[in-house]
């Protein structure tokens, strides 16, 4: 068994040595040449003469033969026409008269002719290509050994919409989009402080995905920022298509059912996290922003907790903890009690439960497993199926599998209730990824309950607790304000105190600058009225 495992690990380690994942690294640390045609040929051969590479050659107003190169679908052709081609072609006589040398023609084009917002000088093939992929238009001319890259990017993308995975009744309704600059803008609009620092990385040798780390300088722990950047720099892979890739590369512990990084689609909750000293990792191409470091209890806070009254927020928080527990242990509890500890059920209930089980051929464990797997299949089908078949699935799921299974005597009605309630409970938790871990643990606990009863469940839960106490998220203990106990942080765990009482930021994250507000902010009737 151990040998088998080692074999697997060895194979796994050999893979990077066999061939560079970055084998398609272009050999272009080279510079642009002076010859226009040579440059164009090199680009064309580099991109395999792809049809969306547009090369437009023309004669500038000063008689210089020039070319612009851009990618059709990434650029705004109106801008190219109006701000690049038009000014160059209609450059005035005065310009032509003055320009004598090549450097002058370059300067004149850049400084006086182009009416585009941002321009850059590129002199390497490498930068040339990446400028093209970012939607820039590159201007070349005969005799220049460098080119101008003008920002003309424009492509179709989703606008800012309401987040689909984390909705609220009260609170901002905007959500992150697939465009990283929009996402950064959404955060900057909320935190108008020079202390909101942004560090960029490009990760993925082929995809060259933009990854930004945002944090509040002076509040966030600098050593954590350093650690995050170190882990990001370690990533050496070909592609990053979603923040999930990054999450798996930088998380502390892979072999755990619990996530140690939160992802959020809501700019307001990410902004709140940044303000508390946490760090956001934005990845281009996905609306899911990573927030770290986190603790277990962060998964149970919804952004709406802070917008609604504190009393209802407190109630809902406790409800979520209960629902999470239910979604994890209810089926196993039912199995354990009905097959091992019948004494614990009130007599009348036991008799009616036994009446329902009368004629059921399977043991309770198998019955529960059957229903749980059925539900998981239904849920997965509900997520993946085409929208048009939705109603068919719900009819089949609710009627055929639920009611008919009971009537056919395959499962007992009580078991259907247990599984249904478990399923509903698992949707109460605001963060989807912790609900998933409860979903998996449920099966393990059911197996333990079926073999050892309540003793099995308890030992399973102890194992989990020990595991959770050992988990870390970027150095922060996973069960932090409880174990180790941090009394100061308890104001926002099981209860959410009124806003004027939240004087300090959570000390776990904000190590340096933890005073959030003044102390005496409790609203009171003003004194002037009393004097009257």
């Amino acid at each position, binding site marked *: 068994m151990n040998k088998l495992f080692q074999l697997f690990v060895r194979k796994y380690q050999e893979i990077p040595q066999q061939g560079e994942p970055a084998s398609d690294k272009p050999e272009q640390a080279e510079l642009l040449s002076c010859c226009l045609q040579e440059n164009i040929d090199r680009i064309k051969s580099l991109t395999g003469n792809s049809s969306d590479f547009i090369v437009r050659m023309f004669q500038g107003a000063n008689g210089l033969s020039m070319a612009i190169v851009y990618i059709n679908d990434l650029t705004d052709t109106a801008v190219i026409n109006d701000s690049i081609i038009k000014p160059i072609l209609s450059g005035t006589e005065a310009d032509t008269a003055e320009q004598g040398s090549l450097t002058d023609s370059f300067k004149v084009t850049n400084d006086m002719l182009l009416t585009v917002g941002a321009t850059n000088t590129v002199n390497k093939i490498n930068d040339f290509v990446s400028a093209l992929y970012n939607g820039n238009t590159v201007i070349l001319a005969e005799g220049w050994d460098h080119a101008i890259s003008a920002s003309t990017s424009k492509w179709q993308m989703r606008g800012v919409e309401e987040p689909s995975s984390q909705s609220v009744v009260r609170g901002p309704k905007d959500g992150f989009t697939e465009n990283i600059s929009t996402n950064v803008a959404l955060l900057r609009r909320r935190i108008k402080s020079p202390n909101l620092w942004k560090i960029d990385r490009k990760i993925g040798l082929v995809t060259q995905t933009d990854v930004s780390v945002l944090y509040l300088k002076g509040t966030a722990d600098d050593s954590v920022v350093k650690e995050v950047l170190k882990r990001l720099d370690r990533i050496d892979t070909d592609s990053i298509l979603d923040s999930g890739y990054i999450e798996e590369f930088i998380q502390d512990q892979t072999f755990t059912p619990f996530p140690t990084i939160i992802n959020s689609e809501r700019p307001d909750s990410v902004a709140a996290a940044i303000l508390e000293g946490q760090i956001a990792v934005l990845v281009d191409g996905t609306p899911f922003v990573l927030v770290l470091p986190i603790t277990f209890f962060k998964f149970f806070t919804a952004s709406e907790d802070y917008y609604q009254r504190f009393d209802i927020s407190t109630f809902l928080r406790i409800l979520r903890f209960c629902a999470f527990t239910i979604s994890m242990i209810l089926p196993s509890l039912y199995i354990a009690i009905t*097959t091992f500890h019948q004494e614990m059920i009130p007599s009348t209930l036991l008799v009616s439960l036994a009446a329902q089980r009368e004629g059921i051929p399977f*043991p309770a464990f198998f019955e529960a497993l059957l229903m749980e797997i059925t539900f998981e299949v239904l849920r997965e089908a509900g997520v993946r199926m085409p929208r048009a078949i939705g109603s068919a699935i719900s009819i089949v799921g609710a009627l055929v599998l639920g009611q008919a299974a009971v009537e056919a005597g395959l499962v007992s009605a009580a078991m259907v209730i247990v599984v249904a309630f478990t399923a509903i409970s698992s949707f109460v938790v605001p963060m989807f990824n912790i609900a998933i871990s409860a979903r998996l643990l449920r099966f393990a606990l059911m197996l333990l309950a079926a073999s050892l009863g309540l003793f099995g469940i308890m030992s399973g839960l102890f194992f989990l607790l020990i595991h959770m106490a050992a988990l870390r998220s970027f150095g922060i203990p996973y069960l932090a304000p409880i174990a180790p106990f941090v009394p100061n942080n308890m104001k926002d765990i099981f209860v959410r105190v009124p806003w004027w009482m939240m004087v300090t930021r959570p000390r776990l994250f904000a190590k340096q600058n933890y005073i959030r507000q003044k102390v005496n902010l409790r609203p009171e009737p003003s004194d002037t009225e009393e004097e009257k």
Partner: protein
Amino acid sequence: MTLSRILYGCLTLIACLGLLTGCWDRKEMDDLALVMASGLDLADDNQIEATLQIALPTGIPSSLQSGGKATKPVLVISAKGKDGLDALGKLQQQLSRRINLGHRGIVVVGEKYARHGFDQILDTLMRSPESRYNSYMLTAYGTTAKKILNASYQMEIIPAIGINKLQYEDFSLSVKMDKFVDALASFGKSPVSGAIRIIKQSSGEQTFIIDKAAVYQRNKLVGFLSGTDLKAYRLMTGNIDGMRLTTQMEPPQNQYHGTITIHLMKAKPKIRTRIKNGKPEVSVSFKAAGRIISNDTSLDMSKVIPLVEKKFSEDIKKEIASTISHTQKKFKSDIFSFGNQIHIEHPYAWKTIKDHWIELYPKVPVQVKTEFRIERVGRTQAPAHQQKK
């Protein structure tokens, strides 16, 4: 990597635990014969006859099976044996499901067996691990346990649950097995239990009634308390939930019966003991409070409260004193646990008298003092039907 290796090892072990166990301890609910009540009788050949009332889940009408023909909700079976477990073993041979005593709420002992004495069976009841201590102990009055368990009951689907609820609500007297055995094992207290009998209604339906208390001396039944005696016993144990007392305040007239009824709200019995010349003496002081719930006299309650209080106080005193003398003269059984009180208050004297306490008890002088207070007179002062002057 070592951590994940340990994790894999643990997971494999857990999987083995779950999958490799041959015969585990699991019992499905429908593999159990749920005993709801058990009864014990003395058979003619001096053997013990055990009766079990087992719930039949198939007979419980559930929403899914409505409309089907009604089957009996319980199965009652009996077998004789040398002792309780022997009989249980014989019963198990008749049953396709395993006998489960976890839900037995009632243990009924037939009168004949109770008078004969049942030490041995109590030991079995207490010793066997699957037997529950908090079952109610009942003595069948004038009948056998087998007949009680075979009787049907209209109000509940399972008769045993009906008896259980009668006991649980504490309408008369309820004693659980642990309390019964505790009294049995102590020198200074005699056990009592509720006494159950079957009565026939005029409609021909059978119902249970628990309106007596069975009084034991050691492990033998010596008699039953009923009526005012039972009431006085309940007053002395402070178990007055919902108890009402009626007294004759005036001689009956043509318009009035002359009675006043009160609802007891508080009762505080206090037993004090003294040792005088090496002999124990007991004084009982009893404080109670109540509210008037019915006034069938010509009196105006706002004026005569002290009178009414005095009358009730005397009534209660008489009842308690007569009940105590009953237990002393008739049963010779210390059901009020005077002996335990002497043990607490005079431990050294108790050592010398505890062995012959049973003989001593009938001769102990008992003084009764009572105090009664009326806390509320209800919403009207004078009787509602009296004309205003």
